[in-house]
């Protein structure tokens, strides 16, 4: 079950695995194309080459290393995402509308426990769309977040999203360094995490 972890240490996935990943991307992107073009067969002249190209780039940049996705965990993740999209939109709307415009922004740097580049990228995507956080750099396992309100318990949310993503993939999270490499710039005061 730990085969995906090997890609962290730089070992490339084997050839058959790459081929399977490419095929999966082709099917997914092809399905997207068919839905978007309403099944119009004359559009395949563009659809087939672009689908193949997108699948090629995707499997080169983020090869699929494991397939089984846990549907229940995915639903939990989507529920969390939808709920927090609403919270995030309302939160930023209220800040923008108040005359006093309550903002105490800053940069929060933290280490991630997710073992693979793909899952870390998914986390970076997720936090950018959730309340008060915006990914502004992802270097290996270290993510730099811009937060709108440094009083908010940002790290608690990051850990929660990590757990949700690890559950979807059925993977183990890495141990954090004994001393959490959390550093906060631009602001004083404590992070509530």
């Amino acid at each position, binding site marked *: 079950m730990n085969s995906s972890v090997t890609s962290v240490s730089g070992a490339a996935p084997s050839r058959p695995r790459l081929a399977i990943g490419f095929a999966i991307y082709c099917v997914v992107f092809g399905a997207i194309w068919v839905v978007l073009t309403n099944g119009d067969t004359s559009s395949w002249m563009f659809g087939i080459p672009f689908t193949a190209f997108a699948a090629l780039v995707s499997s080169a940049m983020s090869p699929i290393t494991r397939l089984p996705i846990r549907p229940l965990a995915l639903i939990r993740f989507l529920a969390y995402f939808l709920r927090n999209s609403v919270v995030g939109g309302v939160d930023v*709307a209220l800040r923008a509308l108040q005359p006093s415009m309550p*903002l105490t922004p*800053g940069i929060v740097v933290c280490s991630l426990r997710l073992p693979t580049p793909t899952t870390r990228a998914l986390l970076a*995507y997720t936090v950018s769309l959730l309340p008060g956080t*915006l990914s*502004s750099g992802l270097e290996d396992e270290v993510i730099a977040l*811009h937060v709108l309100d440094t009083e908010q318990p940002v790290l608690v949310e990051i850990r929660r999203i990590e757990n949700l993503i690890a559950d979807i993939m059925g993977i183990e999270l890495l141990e954090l360094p004994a001393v959490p490499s959390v550093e906060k710039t631009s602001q004083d005061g404590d992070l509530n995490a």
Partner: protein
Amino acid sequence: MSWMDFLVIALLIVSTAFFIVGTIGLLRFPDVYSRLHALTKADNLGLGILILALALNSASGLVSIRLMLTWVLVLVATATTSHLIARAARESGVEPWVKP
């Protein structure tokens, strides 16, 4: 008009409000990072509500799926571009605004 029409109109108005507030945030917020927050969050929610309204209005399964797919693709594009803009700003040394 049926109650469904009223629901669709209400959702459209709410979604427009989020787009407008996102733009207000874009204009009022102090630096590039905060402005990205305003755009990504408010516009995504606004678009989500808009898509919901259009899906209800269409009452067609395939059209609804296509609309949802559009929302997901826009979410991915938004998250990617905002990440790239924020990263480019940090790498070129743009300091985040700090509350005085």
